[in-house]
């Protein structure tokens, strides 16, 4: 690759005119004349002509980009309704009459008057011609129409028929008939989802016995609630939903966490304690994940008694955080604050004789890694490098962070005289380390392996 780069550069230098390319390309890289380029171009020339101003074309696109418009979900992407609309009765169809109606000029009317069969109607709908569904009055006719639409597989048509049925049938009957019509049912569910008809959807799910789906669907609504108090109350109302056992536990935790965050936020917003003046908060803690909350608590509320909601110990216990996760998070927070004493005590355990010993649920190499990222002083770093069990790993990290004593001691333990001699070349001549190595390699008591 280097070679080709060099070659390219050498060619570039002895050639000064590279503008007569085969194809003209604007800086954005699009060939001049391509559509998206032209949209920009015609719009901007328009702007510069000094006429009435038009919102800049090249600002962030205002249109949602996801979804390509090929299918149901994109056909009906209505703005999702806020939570309040739950109360909106499903019978309230008069305001949203989606029954397809005639659009085409009268000349076409004659043409469709002649044939009322479901086949012909559905075919017309598919071709975008004029049609009427009002003619299908009896349940049997309506179902024939639906079945015909389904057999054509055109989602657009199926949905149009379903909207007519929704308006003209009681929901009990509609649900009953949909239960034996899998495809139509899927389209109906999808339609309700996109239109944000949450209440009806939940009823349908219940009728179908798909209670877990229903619960999740309802839970999803919390994403649309901005106000934290209302979001908390909504999550609380979700607790009684028929989730699977695991999901129920997670939703409970979600609620408890937000509840907790609201309390902490109310207190910390004032930022009276010294720590907040020293390290002002960059953002509120509301709606942050649990581990982020724990980190926050280890940063601002370390050492508070377990009875306090904001204390790390309380959070750890309430949410059953694993020891590993807890140590990692607390370590990160305390190291950030350069509280090396706290770091130290995280790993201290007393054995039954009362001696303290360092123990960690995560490998000490990872502890070293985190400490190093937080610019721990050499002394602190060295202590933890020394605790790494695996000699190979210890050696490589000790070399990386220049903990000479550990390197030397490890080679001594490995009885590797050769490596010790090699390492002597890396330390400063005449230094303490140099002398230490010198002593060791001349020590005839050690049974070197090489």
């Amino acid at each position, binding site marked *: *690759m280097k070679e080709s780069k060099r070659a*390219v550069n050498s060619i570039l230098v002895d050639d000064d005119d590279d503008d007569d390319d085969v194809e003209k390309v604007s800086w954005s890289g699009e060939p001049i004349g391509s559509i998206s380029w032209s949209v920009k171009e015609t719009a901007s020339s328009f702007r510069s002509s000094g006429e009435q101003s038009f919102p800049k074309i090249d600002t962030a696109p205002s249109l949602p980009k996801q979804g390509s418009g090929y299918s149901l979900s994109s056909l009906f992407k209505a703005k999702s309704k806020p939570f309040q609309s739950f109360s909106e009765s499903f019978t309230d169809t008069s305001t949203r009459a989606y029954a397809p109606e005639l659009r085409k000029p009268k000349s076409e009317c004659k043409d469709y008057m002649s044939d009322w069969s479901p086949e012909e109607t559905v075919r017309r709908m598919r071709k975008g011609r004029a049609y009427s569904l009002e003619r299908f009055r009896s349940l049997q006719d309506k179902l024939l129409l639906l079945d015909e639409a389904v057999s054509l597989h055109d989602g657009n048509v199926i949905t149009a028929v379903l909207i007519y049925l929704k308006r003209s049938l009681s929901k009990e009957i509609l649900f009953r008939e949909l239960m034996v019509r899998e495809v139509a049912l899927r389209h109906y569910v999808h339609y309700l989802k996109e239109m944000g008809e949450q209440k009806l959807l939940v009823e349908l799910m219940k009728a179908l016995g798909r209670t877990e789906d229903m619960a999740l669907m309802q839970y999803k609504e919390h994403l649309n609630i901005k106000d934290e108090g209302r979001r908390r109350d909504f999550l609380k109302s979700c607790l009684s939903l028929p989730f699977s056992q695991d999901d129920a536990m997670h939703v409970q935790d979600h609620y408890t966490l937000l509840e907790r965050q609201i309390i902490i936020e109310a207190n910390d917003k004032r930022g009276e304690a010294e720590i907040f003046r020293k390290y002002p908060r960059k953002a509120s803690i509301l709606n942050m994940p649990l581990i982020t909350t724990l980190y926050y608590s280890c940063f601002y509320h370390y050492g508070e008694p377990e009875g306090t909601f904001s204390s790390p110990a309380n959070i750890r216990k309430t949410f059953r955080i694993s020891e590993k996760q807890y140590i990692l998070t607390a370590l990160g927070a305390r190291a950030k604050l350069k509280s090396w004493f706290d770091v130290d005590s995280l790993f201290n355990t007393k054995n039954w004789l009362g001696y303290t010993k360092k123990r960690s649920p995560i490998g000490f190499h990872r502890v070293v890694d985190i400490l190093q990222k937080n610019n721990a002083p050499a002394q602190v770093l060295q202590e933890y490098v020394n605790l790494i069990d695996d000699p190979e790993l210890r050696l490589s990290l000790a070399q990386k962070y220049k903990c000479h004593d550990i390197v030397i001691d490890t080679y001594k333990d490995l009885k590797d005289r050769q490596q010790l001699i090699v390492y002597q070349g890396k330390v400063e001549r005449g230094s303490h380390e140099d002398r230490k190595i010198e002593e060791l390699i001349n020590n005839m008591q050690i049974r070197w392996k090489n």
Partner: protein
Amino acid sequence: MAAHLSYGRVNLNILREAARKELREFLDKCAGSKAIVWDEYLTGPFGLIAQYSLLKEHEVEKMFTLKAGRVPSADVKNIIFFVRPRLELMDIIAENVMSEDKLQPPREFHILFVPRRSLLCEQRLKEQGVLNSFTNIDEYILDLIPYDGDLLSMESESAFRECYLENDQTSLYHTAKGLMTLQALYGTIPQIFGKGECARHVANMMLRMKREFAGSQNQILPVFDTLLLLDRNVDLLTPLATQLTYEGLIDEIYGITNGYVKLPPEKFAQKKPGEGGKDLPTEPKKLQLNSAEELYAEIRDKNFNAVGAALSKKAKIISAAFEERHNAKTVGEIKQFVSQLPHMQAARNSLANHTSIAELIKDITTSEDFFENLTVEQEFMTGVDTDKVNTYIEDSIAQKDPLIKILRLVCMQSVCNNGLKQKVLDHYKREILQTYGYEHLLTLNNLEKVGLLKPQLTTRNNYPTIRKTLKLWMEDANEQNPNDISYVYSGYAPLSVRLTQLLARPGWRSIEEVLKMLPGPHFEERQQLPTGLHKKRQQGENRTTLVFFLGGVTYAEIAALRFLSQMEDGGTEYVIATTKLLNGTSWIKSLMDRPEAQIL
């Protein structure tokens, strides 16, 4: 402009021409000068069909992006909205129409729905009281868009989610429609094979549609011998793996949309002598990527480890060509040299671009994290420790690596273990929810519903059997001079492509047992051809197979199929079609319920 579409085995330019013709016809329906108001999303796909020049020839004088408010005053007779059939766009259009300046001479409004008109949208316009303001409401059926000489895509981002999560089969209907259009242009495809529920469904619709047209027989000599329909959920593993071809890596790292990629500009600043202090450009560099570019066509499908050598080789050739000028002595020789200059300069620019891209990618592929991630993927794919909690995944969660990366790995472990032990699955779920937020419960549920993540219900893991029978892992994958498709993932042979390969030879009968382990039915259908249209195959003439990936395909799978097409004794050439060009990241993202949260 689109010559590269006609170089392939099947001239896909015919499809493009048909689409252009339809566009012209619509434009001519709106007589007089016009302005187009674009649903911005459509400009990408349309760019593959037509240039501005075509629109200009048909009196399109201005183009705007669809925005709320008033359509800018432009002195034209017609305003045409090119939009996807989406309700929220209808609201914007209605606003546009209603705020039209009454003092100006009236303009005519038209709507072109892409790819289908929608009854609901028209209803919405009616509710807003503007439906009667439109002179023309039409649809522009753009199902299969030609992306390259051997590649068609519907670019339907949500197709997989709709088919497998929401059970919405509308995109399958469009697929069947698209295949009917294709058959109208290239002849009836006599043989249809398929694997998977959706494949079965599409085949059924095609056969039904054909019966409906029974009256008019297609008199075109068939270009395709076989159509193979494959469900994405037959092979959930492949898109999860990191693609290791050049094009695949460009897509993994920077994302290719509608044939374009946006790259960090630093490496592309051309240093010219005397301009040392010039500011670096800050806008991303946008490049078009397709086989019209000779060098790209050559290297796109190579394993990335073979790209460096290919670039150096090319560099030598180009250097030598430029050196030729010193040998040019006579006026004739100089003239000839000069005539070749534009081509040589294009080649040199192309080389410079790809060298820069390769450098960008190399910075990433040589990073420790990329290596570790790849190692874990390969362990999973070879079946190492798939039943335990993986420490690399755990560490990645602890470091808050992007959620999608975590999900890709966890799903891969689940797929390679035919589901995770309940304890392992619970552990991952808890860690993910605690670290990234409880709302991702929804995403985890989605992944379970499509089968990417699941608890192991039986103790029997059939993945090793599938792997061994289909030879999905090749120890000695040759990256430089490949002899097997496994080179595209440096060892892993994509399951989907293996199925395709085995269908051609020796046929699926040999792998009945494995086919039964994969989800959905497998089937074969035949479509009758009118007498006289039966192809008489020349001795040694290759068969042509259209492989349709329902739910998406990766660039690495495309590379593997191209590799099979080029095999000397392969006997089959492939044209590839899909609902969407995807990679693991865009795929998982499409299944998330709150994708923006992953940026945390």
